[in-house]
């Protein structure tokens, strides 16, 4: 699946998107996998309450299932307007 990062999440991880092969059931499981990868992922996902997630370009909860999802995006709370 495609995993996208925006704003300071992108900066901490050091790339805007990547392909991830995963068996993770929920977003939270995926975060646990990513966090275990490298220090920069651990830093980006340190405080999950400071993050938001979108599944296939719709805002979602961290408990949401990943089945059938093609694009996951992680980012800080939005600051539009």
């Amino acid at each position, binding site marked *: 699946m495609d995993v996208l990062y925006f704003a300071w999440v992108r900066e901490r991880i050091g790339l805007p998107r990547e392909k991830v092969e995963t068996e993770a059931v929920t977003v939270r499981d995926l975060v646990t996998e990513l966090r275990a990868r490298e220090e920069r992922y651990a830093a980006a996902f340190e405080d999950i309450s400071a993050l938001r997630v979108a599944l296939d370009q719709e805002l979602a909860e961290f408990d949401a299932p990943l089945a059938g999802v093609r694009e996951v995006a992680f980012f800080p709370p*939005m600051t*539009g*307007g």
Partner: protein
Amino acid sequence: MRISVQEAPFDLGQESAAFAAGHRDMGAVVTFTGIVRDLPEDPMEAMEIEHYPGMTQKAISQIAEEALARFSLGDVLVIHRYGRLVPGEMIMMVATAARHRSHAFEAASFLMDYLKSRAPFWKREISRSGVEWVAATDADEDALARWTPRAP
């Protein structure tokens, strides 16, 4: 309903006049314009706005559809820029047309509250001393609480 997510500047005067002229059957038109503040004491040199291209248009359309469903509106316009903006530049605008002023005001306010916290934009401020991401505030999140769910 027109939604435009664009890097280029927009012309507030032209957009406002065209929107109002296009809604002669509505008695009330409200516009909101967001501007990069230009304060003499402010060290900010530029604001950079990042967005999520695949999601932005869709998210704003959903917010606009929700406004049309909640309020008695004739039409909605949303223009939101991304990229590098300097102080004094306009970031975005919304316009609403309604028969009654309260609906036009409330809908514009609703749109702004949701665009602020639910449209995938992230701002950062660039100054001589560095670059800083603008943090979302509790007040912005709290603003959404006013808009209780509609009755089914």
